[in-house]
Structures are given as structure tokens and as C-alpha cells.
């Protein structure tokens, strides 16, 4: 429950709305509780041969009170519920802003679906508490107290008798709600198991089919879903109790009023009108009773959700500007130096990068080659500070990379990642992702350099074509080239291409490399590639093996060396030969 206190700052932001809401509730209740009295008076007046006008007056008063109370209740919703939606908006914004700044590894360790659940389940659960939860608890509390006061003042004994069954409602709603919630959780868990089994079945369908296990799988799933059904039936056994119990308990109260109240009337201690008022008040009281149990459950759920949310908000973005950051650095030139850099992933004992020393001068082009898993991608990930080295230092223009403001650093890096991630948006918006307000010509220009312009012009809506699930599906090679254009349009000081031509054919690769020659001038370029063709013209080539730099030199030098690079080169030639056979 304590976690809900953390909502204080959000609520305080909208305290005006909440106070107005409170005022509106008071106003609304004041008129609302009048109605039963009015009806009762009207009925009693019948005994004394009241005039038609007087009856019409009563009717008007009833309608008028309802109208005034209704108007106030309109304002209650317009303040309190609206406030809860506003807080929900704030929270969701805070959540997104926070999570998008979290470290890369956070997303590797957690499933996207789980992170999504915070936004889709937990924030709404908290909102439910902030809106209907608060509104109904205030409303019902006031209503409850006022109505009880009135009833007691009308007839103390009758009130006492008829009220006996009512707290039972709250208690039962709460108790049943709790059991229902427990069983429901159990069902949800089972549903999860069922989903996992279905998932495993479908993704393993090949194996299952080849061992002819279909019938067994059907049987297995039948057992699971049968159990699921039984659990549900167990739930409904309890859940179905709620409504009948409510009818019965309120029914008993009503019968008590008719019976005991009837006695009082016969004895002359009460009037028929008062009984009618009582009956209506009872109707009024049922709702607060239900609401009370309901609010309890809702609050508990909100508190559990808030716990989870606080947990997320507690995660610190590991990589950010610190007090060491030198904000006077407004731009970078592009010189990069690795000094004794070691790196390992937090969950592993082995270093992925070992004692890396590397100096790249501004404007140079460097090729990085090595077998899969040799640490190439990890190495370049350190430059935009997606990771931080465990040991050693990295310098940009001779300055410790940690002193360069993150924004400045990343603004000046054009990084085409190994697997290009495009957003389901237009091609144009994907290309201009990293920049603001660029001209159409500029977009065309980079598309041409990336050798994708002509293909885009053949798309149904050219540059406005939507890519991804909702639009057209791009081939791997097209994705890579859009990704390249996206990096180029930034006019970066440092361009990093991580195996960016793996899905394009040899001819296209050659064209792109040719186009890039011009673009590269004055920019530091790092090219990771499996194909020698992409790196052989580099100023120098670094060969990584098992996290270490094993060879450095130009294409010719490395060939002469006859090491890993030469081996890779040989294999490539063979591959080309094979392709031609």
C-alpha cells in the first residue's frame, strides 16, 4: 500500500481538479439525499387530501433536485476522472522517456512483452485507482454517512434492524473478490503455460511431425486446456455467487423494512411515506456497499502495479552524461583512439575484447575483418558508447570519450548496424530519422549514394511508401541500403558500417563503395565486412580474432603476411570461383 504514496507528486499537480471534484461531490450529495424525503412527504400528503398543484410541486422538486445533483455529478467526473487520465498521460510519458534511455542490456535481458506490460497493464491499474477509485471512495463515504444520519434520525430502531445485513455485502464483495482474484491469478498462470505449450508446439512442429507425435501433442494440449476449463469452472462457482448474494441480502433488508416498518405504521409510530423514503434510501446504500469491496480490490491491485512500476523507474540508465562531462565540447573531428581496452558482457566471465589498442586518424578509412564472434561488432559499439569498456580508455579527438557530451558524440556518428531496424513509417521518414528539416534533394542524394534511389522510385508511393508490417516488406538488401542512407544523411564525422553489404549483391556493393569514396572524404570511416572487397582499399585493415587484434596493415601487407587475413582472402576467392561453376 505504501507504494501508492509515491503518487503524491502526480496528484498534487492536479490538486485543483481533485478539490473541485470534492466540492462537486458535496454539492451533488446534498441534493441527492433530499429525494427520498421528498417522495416520502408526497406520499404522506396523500392522506390529507392534498391538492393537485401541491403534488406537481413535489414532482418538480424531485426532478429539480435530481437535475442539480446530476449537474454536480457531471462536474465530479469532469474533474476527478479527467485528472486521472491526465496523470496516466504523465506517467506513461515518464515511463517511455525513462525506458528509452535505459541501457542496451536491459532490453536484452527482458522480453519486450514484459516491458510493454508495464504500460498496458500496470499504468491503467494505477489510473483506475486515481480516477474511479478515489472518486467512488469519497462519494460513497459521504453518501454513506449522510444517509445513515438521516435514516437514524427518522427511526433509530428500524434503521438498526434493516442495516444489519448490509455490511455483509461489503464483506462478501471483498471476500469473494479476493477468492476470485486468487483463482483468476491461478487461471492466468495456467493460461500462460497453455500459451507456452502452444508456442513450443508450433515452433517445434517439424520435429513433432517427423516423430509422428501429433496425436500425443493433441492429447497433451487437451489435458492442459481441460484443466484450464476446470479451473475456470472452479472460478465461476464462486464468482456466480456475487450477484445472487447481493440480491438476497438487499432483498432481506427491503423485506425487513416492509415488515418491521409495516408494524410501526400500524402502531402509528411511522408514516407510510417514511417507509417509502426508507426503501429508497436502502436502494441508495446498496451501491456504496458494493463499491466499498470493489475499491478495496482495486486499491490492492493498483498498489501491486505501482510496486512494479517503481521497480522500473529505479533502474538507472548506466550510460549518461555525468559531472565529468565537458559541455563546452560542441563538435568532434573524428579521431578515435582505443587504449588497452577490455570488455566483457556482465553475465559472462570471458572477455570479448582483449587489450585493444587502435588509433584512427581523422578522415582515415579502416577495415575490420575477422571470423564471426571475434568481437568486431562489440568493438564498434563502444564508439557511440552503447557499451562501456571494463578496462582501458577510449579517446575522441584526444579527449576521454566520457567527457564528450553523449548528444554531441552520437550526433556525429553515422552507425549502420548489422541488422538494420526500420520503423513502420514511410521510406522518407526512415531516411530522415536522425535529422531535422532536410530538403528533398538531400534525401534523394543520399538515396542515390546508397544505391537505393531507383528502387524506391519504383515503390507504389515512392518515398512515401510505408515499410514494415503495414506496408511493403523490404528485402534484406533494401533494408541495409535504407539504413545506410539514414546514416549518411546525418553527414557524420564518423561513419561506421557493420557488415552493411552482407545482403546486397556484389555489383551493388561495388557501386555503393564507389559512391562512398567521395562521401568519405574528411570523415573517419570504419567498415566491418566479411567480404574483402569492401575493405581492401581502406587506409589500413585490422584483423580481430577471438577479441584480439592479431594483424594490422594494408591489404597488400596483410596478404604478404599470410595470416588470418590471407586465409579469409583465399576462401573468398574460392567462394567466387564456386559461384561461377
Amino acid at each position, binding site marked *: 500500500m505504501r507504494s501508492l504514496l509515491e503518487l503524491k507528486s502526480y496528484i498534487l499537480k492536479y490538486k485543483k481538479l481533485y478539490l473541485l471534484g470534492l466540492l462537486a461531490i458535496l454539492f451533488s450529495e446534498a441534493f441527492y439525499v433530499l429525494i427520498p424525503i421528498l*417522495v416520502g412527504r408526497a*406520499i404522506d400528503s*396523500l392522506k390529507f387530501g*392534498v391538492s*393537485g398543484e401541491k403534488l406537481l410541486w*413535489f*414532482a418538480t422538486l424531485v426532478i429539480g*433536485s435530481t437535475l442539480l*445533483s446530476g449537474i454536480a455529478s457531471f462536474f465530479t467526473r469532469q474533474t476527478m476522472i479527467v485528472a486521472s*487520465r491526465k496523470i496516466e498521460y504523465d506517467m506513461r510519458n515518464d515511463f*517511455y*522517456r525513462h525506458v*528509452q534511455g535505459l541501457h*542496451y542490456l536491459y532490453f*536484452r535481458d527482458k522480453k*519486450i512483452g514484459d516491458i*510493454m506490460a508495464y*504500460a498496458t497493464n500496470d499504468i491503467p491499474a494505477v489510473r483506475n485507482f486515481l480516477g474511479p477509485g478515489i472518486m467512488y471512495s469519497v462519494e460513497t463515504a459521504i453518501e454513506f454517512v449522510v444517509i445513515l444520519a438521516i435514516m437514524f434520525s427518522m427511526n433509530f430502531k428500524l434503521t438498526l434492524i434493516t442495516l444489519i445485513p448490509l455490511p455483509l455485502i461489503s464483506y462478501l464483495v471483498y471476500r469473494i473478490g479476493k477468492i476470485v482474484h486468487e483463482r483468476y491469478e491461478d487461471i492466468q498462470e495456467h493460461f500462460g*503455460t497453455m*500459451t*507456452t505449450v*502452444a508456442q513450443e*508446439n508450433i*515452433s517445434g*512442429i*517439424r520435429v513433432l*511431425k517427423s516423430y*509422428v*507425435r501429433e496425436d500425443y*501433442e*493433441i492429447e497433451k494440449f487437451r489435458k492442459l486446456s481441460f484443466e484450464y*476449463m476446470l479451473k475456470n*469452472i472452479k472460478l*465461476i462457482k464462486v464468482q*456466480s455467487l456475487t*450477484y*445472487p448474494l447481493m440480491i*438476497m441480502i438487499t432483498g432481506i433488508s427491503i*423485506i425487513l423494512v*416492509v415488515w418491521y416498518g*409495516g*408494524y410501526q405504521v*400500524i402502531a402509528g409510530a411511522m408514516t*407510510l411515506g417514511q417507509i*417509502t423514503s426508507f426503501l429508497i434510501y436502502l436502494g441508495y446504500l446498496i451501491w456504496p456497499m458494493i463499491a466499498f469491496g470493489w475499491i478495496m480490490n482495486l486499491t490492492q491491485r493498483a498498489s501491486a502495479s505501482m510496486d512494479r512500476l517503481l521497480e522500473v523507474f529505479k533502474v538507472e540508465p548506466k550510460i549518461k552524461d555525468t559531472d565529468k562531462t565537458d559541455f563546452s565540447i560542441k563538435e568532434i573531428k573524428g579521431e578515435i583512439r582505443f587504449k588497452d581496452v577490455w570488455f566483457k558482457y556482465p553475465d559472462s566471465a570471458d572477455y570479448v575484447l582483449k587489450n585493444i589498442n587502435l588509433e584512427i586518424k581523422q578522415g582515415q578509412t579502416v577495415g575490420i575483418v575477422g571470423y*564471426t564472434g571475434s568481437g568486431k561488432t*562489440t568493438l564498434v*559499439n563502444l564508439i557511440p558508447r*552503447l557499451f562501456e569498456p571494463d578496462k582501458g580508455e577510449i579517446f575522441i579527438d584526444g579527449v576521454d570519450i566520457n567527457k564528450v557530451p553523449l548528444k554531441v558524440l*552520437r550526433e556525429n*556518428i553515422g*552507425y549502420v548496424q548489422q541488422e538494420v*531496424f526500420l*520503423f513502420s513509417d514511410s521510406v522518407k521518414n526512415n531516411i530522415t*530519422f536522425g535529422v531535422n528539416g532536410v530538403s528533398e534533394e538531400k534525401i534523394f542524394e543520399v538515396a542515390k549514394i546508397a544505391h537505393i534511389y531507383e528502387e524506391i522510385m519504383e515503390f507504389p508511393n515512392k518515398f512515401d511508401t510505408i515499410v514494415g508490417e503495414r506496408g511493403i516488406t523490404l528485402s534484406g538488401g533494401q533494408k541495409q541500403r535504407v539504413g545506410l542512407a539514414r546514416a549518411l544523411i546525418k553527414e557524420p564525422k564518423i561513419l561506421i558500417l557493420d557488415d552493411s553489404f552482407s545482403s546486397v549483391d556484389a555489383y551493388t556493393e561495388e557501386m555503393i563503395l564507389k559512391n562512398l569514396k567521395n562521401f568519405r572524404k574528411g570523415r573517419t570511416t570504419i567498415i566491418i565486412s566479411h567480404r574483402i572487397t569492401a575493405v581492401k582499399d581502406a587506409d589500413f585493415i585490422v584483423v580481430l580474432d577471438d577479441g584480439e587484434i592479431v594483424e594490422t596493415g594494408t591489404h597488400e601487407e596483410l596478404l604478404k603476411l599470410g595470416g588470418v587475413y590471407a*586465409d579469409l582472402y583465399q576462401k573468398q576467392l574460392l*567462394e567466387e*570461383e*564456386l559461384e561461377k*561453376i
Partner: protein
Amino acid sequence: MHDFRDDEILGKAYDSKLMKRLLKYVKPYWKQVTIAVFLVLILAALNPLRPYITKFAIDDYILKSNYEGLTKLALLLLGLLFIQGILQYLLSYTTEWIGQKTIFDLRMEVFAHLQRLALRFFDKNPTGRLVTRVTNDVESLNEMYSSGIILVFGDIFTIIGILYFMFSLSFELSVVTLSVLPLLFYATFLFRKKAREAYREVRTLIARINAFLQEHFSGVSVVQVFNREQEEFKKFDSINAKYRDANIKSIFYYSVFFPAVELISAIGVGLIIWYGGGEVLKGTVTVGVLISFLQYTEMFFRPVRDLSEKYNIFQTAMASAERIFKLLDTKVFIKPPDNPIKLEKIHGDIEFKNVWFAYRDDGEMVSDDEWILKNVSFKINAGEKVAIVGATGAGKSTIINLLCKFYEPQKGQILIDGIDIRNVDEKELRKHIAVVLQDVQLFSGNILTNITLGNDKIPMESVIESSKLIGADKFIERLPNSYFEPVQERGANLSVGEKQLISFVRALVYEPKILILDEATSSVDVETEKIIQNAIEKLLENRTAIIIAHRLSTIQNSDKIIVLHKGEVREVGTHDELLALKGIYYRLYQLQYKDRRTKLVNVSGITR
């Protein structure tokens, strides 16, 4: 991964064709349905009875000072209340029960249908979507089955019941009181319409928020590398703000609607006081009637409001039903043979005869570069071990797929012991073949169930014996619960090598005549590598084996090597013969096997 966009599209709330089909699933439970309908009818008659009796309590006993009668009547009311409560419980329970049973049947039908579909179907449909059909889509029909259909009748009958009692008490007063009804209907209708529009907007926007989050969390590194946190936040903020405003808009309708309903009911009360009161003065109706009418107006409003709420339930249900039926209507099967030939025991001769195959199968002409296999012919004698080598995309896995009848070739024949497998039932065929794939698929359960795949005809001794033979027994017995050690999702608690060994034992316990092995390329430590190599040798003993080879040792030990290149069989022979040929195999050998250092597995999952 759940697709947040797919399921947000709402269509119409009623489609007679779909409804008819949905109702078929209730048929087996017609007895329970009859009971439910019966209960609905009784309750519709019982519910309005209390105000009616209250009237008599007031007019005949209270006003006539009859203590005894009043007590009797109160007891009658009490009895009635209990009956009502019990029946109401039975009704809720029965309808929910029907819903659960129906859902169970439907879910099993969908799942069983999926098991029968050919692999071709799974190639095209993402796993996540299919899982959703079995789980969430079926689930969303539950409400319709349980509370939808039967309770709609309930609401209608309750309204009719109330009307009956009101009219029998006082026709005129009923007409006057009910004159507010059109107002109520109109207000409800208007509210439903407006709220639905607002709700649709809310749904669309929440879907957009979810899609945005999903996409931006998946692509978070792009956002960070491109330094777009501010800009992307602004985008998110604008959708989020729209969502907030759409909600606030719908709050407006609710804020108006609830007080409006109160007001309409107050008008009804006003009419009862004014007109009914006048009638009481005239002596045409009694005070009791007046009070019971006050109760009826309150009772009346609930079912009317309920009815309009059922709309949403139906709408969601129809959308799900459409998706489910579309899946059930998909009939992608391997054509069963007209006169299936039984394969009791086989020797294990395999022959491919001029086989042509393309994955595309839409009846149109297959273009030249779409053929995955072109005129492939080869013969493998029973007991031989044959390695298939070739570059990626040469068509190696396709050969496995065809031999297991996962797909059917467009042209040519595949023969086992001289029998065309077209004439053999797919399951019958697969009983004689075991496939060990590179990616080892593990299932939740324990080591044992992962070996036997739940086949309890395989005795424990055989499992242990096979494990020993393969050399898997050592690591299994080291586990705390040995063969009963739970296997976590995707086998997270096992190493790559251990998973491999389990898949070998799995193949061995099934005692196949033909074994197909797609050797794993993942690197394991030297010791495991040794164990695996030994295991492969044991595995291949006394069987016909086709191996997509990645290990030099396997190739050297095989009786024959088939070199597949660009979908064609280009060279056949032993290792030495082929090397001497200095053709494709020679080059492949240099590239892939000689001095093998390439680590083909990505160590970190980071790039994903």
C-alpha cells in the same frame, strides 16, 4: 510476440453467417441450454413479483392493521427471495459452464487442426499469430457464449415480466410512467453511438501507443545511436496526448449519460407522484400501487442498460470468430494417397528419381531460378551412410523435407524400397525415419519426456541404454533429478552440446531404419566435440543414413558423398575420388573443412 495491431480491428457486432456457425458449437450442450432458458423464464417471472407483493402488504395489511397477515406475507417474500437467489446462481453457473465447455471444444478443434496442417502453411504464418488464435482469440469468444446469448434473452424477458405486472396493477399509470421510456431509449442510443465512436478512437489510439512502444523498444538502439530520444519522445507524447484527449472525450459522454439516466428515472418518479398521486386522491389506485411503481421504475432501468452493453461483447466476439474460422477453413494438407501402401518393415533403400522442387506452389509456372532442386537423382542402398555437401542454399535441407514428405516434389519420384512415397501415408512413412535437426527443439517437461517426446511405449530401460550408447548418461545422471530433471523453456538450463546429445538419444530410442542428420555447426568444447563424434557413429550403426555434413570426420567415414550445387547433383563419390576430381567438392573442402576455424555461431545475442 503478440501483435498489438492485428487484434484491434473491430467490425460489426452481428453477422448471421458467423453466428450460425458459432451456435453449432453450443449444440452438444442443448440440455444445459434448455435448463438455462428455463431458468431465465422463471426468473423473468419471479423478479417483478416482490414490488407486486409489497403492494398487497401495504394496501391489505399495513393500511388495514393486519399484523398476522403482514408477517405471513413477509415470510412469503423471504421464501421467494431465497428461491430467486438460488435460481439466479444456477443460471449464472449454467451459462458460464456452457461457455467454458464450448470454448474448450473450439480450442481443441483449432489446435488439432493446426497439427494436421502441412509445413508449407507454417512457413507463411508467424508462430505468434497462430498461438494467438489458439489462446486469446478463442478466449474472447467466452463472454459471448457465457453471458451473451442466453442473458440477452434474460434481459428481454425480465423487461416483459415487469411490464406485465405493471400493466396488471394499473394500466393508465403504466402508460404514464412508461412515457419516459422513449426518452431513456433515445438517451441510451445516443450515448451508445457517441461512446462507441469515442471508444473506437480510444482503441485505435491505444493500439498505436502499443505499436509505438513495441517498435521503439525493439529498435531502442537505433533511437539511442541516432540521438533521437527527444524527437521520439515528442512523437510518443503526441500520440499519448491524443489518447488522453480521446479518453477525456469519452468521459464527457459518461458524465452526461449517468446523470441523464438518473434524471429520466426522476421524471418517471415525478410522474408517478403527480399523476399517480392524483389517482390515489380520486381513489382509482391505492397507495400500495404507487409504492410498487416506484420500485418498478428502478428495476426497469437495469436490463435496458445491460442490453446495450452486450453490444461490445458481440463485436469483439465476431472479430475473433472471423479469424478463427479463417484458420479452420485453411486446408493446406499433404494430399493423402488414394490407395495407401502399408510400410510394415523396410530395408532402407532410398532413391530420388529426376526430382524437381520449388517452394512456390500456387499453380503458376515456376521460373528457372525458383527451382530449389533441379532434376535430382541419386540412389542410396540400405545401410549406406551418405553425406550431402554443398554451399548454403544448395538445396540440402530440401532433400530432407521431401524425403519426410513435408513437401511434395513437383516432378519426379522418391522411392523407399522401390515404393513411391506418394502412395504412402505421411505418418506411416515418418515412423521409419528419424530426423535430427541442427537447431535442437526442446519442450517444457523433463529430460525423459524430451527424449521420448511423450511416447510411453518406449521403456525406461531403452532410454537409459540409448543414453549410455550415445554418452549422454553422464551429464544426465549428474543432474539433481537425472532423467526427471525439468527442462526449462527452450532448454535454458542445458548447454548446446547437451541439447545435441538429447536429440541423438531421442532419434535412437525411436529405432528408425532411416536416419537423417543435419549436423550442428555450433562450436562446442573439445571434449564435447569428441563425445558428439562418438555419438554420431553409434547413431548411424545399422541404418541408412543421410547426413548434411559439417564435420570432416563424418564425411571421411561416409560411404558416399553427394555434392549438391545450385540445386543439382554435380558430383558423387568417395572423399578421395572427389578430391582427385578437383571440382566443386575440392573447393568446398578447402573452404569449409580444411583447417576449420570458422565459428559460425554468434556468441552474443546482442545484434538481435
